[in-house]
């Protein structure tokens, strides 16, 4: 089975790398250049994670049969 969106960065991978970058920057042992590069990467990751949190559309669907998906009406309690 091929993994869907295998090339796409996973949320947890992005969050883990972001955590690592914060740690590296806070240690303050990198050069200014490296720090700036890390910072840039960190900002991109934070934006990526934030977008990921927002991007799910809240679609509730049901697969009637193979390849046939339709919205599911959820009865309110």
């Amino acid at each position, binding site marked *: 089975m091929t993994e869907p969106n295998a090339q796409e960065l996973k949320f947890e991978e992005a969050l883990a790398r972001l955590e690592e970058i*914060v740690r590296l920057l806070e240690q303050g042992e990198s050069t200014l250049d490296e720090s700036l590069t890390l910072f840039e990467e960190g900002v991109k990751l934070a934006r990526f994670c934030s977008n990921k949190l927002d991007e799910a559309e809240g679609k509730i669907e049901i697969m009637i049969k193979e390849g046939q998906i339709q919205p*599911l009406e959820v009865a309110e309690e």
Partner: protein
Amino acid sequence: MQPITVSELTRMISSALADPVFQNLAVIGEVSNFVHHSSGHMYFSLKDAHSRIKAVMFRSRNRLLKFLPKNGDTVIAVGSVGVYEPNGEYQLYVEVLFPQGIGELHLAFEQLKAKLEAEGLFDPARKKPLPLLPRRVGVITSPSGAALRDILHVLTRRHPGVNVLVFPALVQGEEAPASLRHALELAQGTDCDVLIIGRGGGSFEELSAFNDEQLARAIAQSAIPVVSAVGHETDFTIADFVADLRAPTPSAAAELVVPLQSELRAAVGSYGVRLAAALRRKIGAERRFLAQLTKSAALKRPDFMVNQLRQRVDDLVTSLGLHTTHTSGLPLRRSRLGTFAGKLETLSPLKTLARGYAICSDEEGRVLRSAEQVSSGDAVNVTLYQGRLVCRVEGRVLHDGA
């Protein structure tokens, strides 16, 4: 004929008894000679009218017993036959023990559980991790059940944007295992990155679809991590043991699968804040370091060090007796000095001045760092990148922003 040793014979018997025929058996018999040894292991015999077999149930196994066997009890023992080689005795190694009254379903359950466990299907090492933020949650259950309503309710409460795809399946009755397997298979072809399989509470018989061997194997083979959510907290099914994660109830499964969106948002936000703070500190430290550098005498005048070097070269040339400038080495050295001077140049305050900063000094040429160093009416010199201004102080503001 070449005789074999006792050990060799015993090992042959032992390997003959390793035949699957003697593994994972359910044996009914009466308990006799029961001894609960101080080591915690239980030793006894199982007998009927004509035969007797020795049995042992180790502490790791009998710890889970829900009753204490005693002589005269008729029991069903699930386990395998093996040889205790030092005594040349074959015996039943008991995994699970039930009083006689146990139903067939329970017995089949325990047998299947022991079998799959022996195959390593419950091994924690083969359990797949769940995604932190699922792209799409697949739910395999009855579309009309309370379990689905509970799951959807909790999923959307924790993360309003979560995408869910429901795979309807029968969850009880004879066709339920095949129906559940089919749904699981359909799910494999989708972009769901975690699956919940389950149903609400019911009797042991009603939950038995989740004790199906083929379903258990299908769950173990799923490429997508599976969370089992069958019945209540006290219900355990084979699906629970083989799933990547067991949730005590359908609602709990939803909680385990989807993180609180607000928590993750706060985590990402705090990382952002820490990033900015760390970089600001770094830049502050660099700036202080640079300030110290530019204070040093050598760097105040970039040509100072170059002249020093130039003189050293001249001295060397002199000491080597190479007075003439027609040597081939010297132009090269000079060009190196030029490069060096260029490097120094980039560190010197002149660069800073070129960007529009100015150096202010008093009439004695002392660089001013504080407004307190001068009084109104004093003359000061302002050095620009190009040229110099002669000024007079009209007033002072002693504090930033005051």
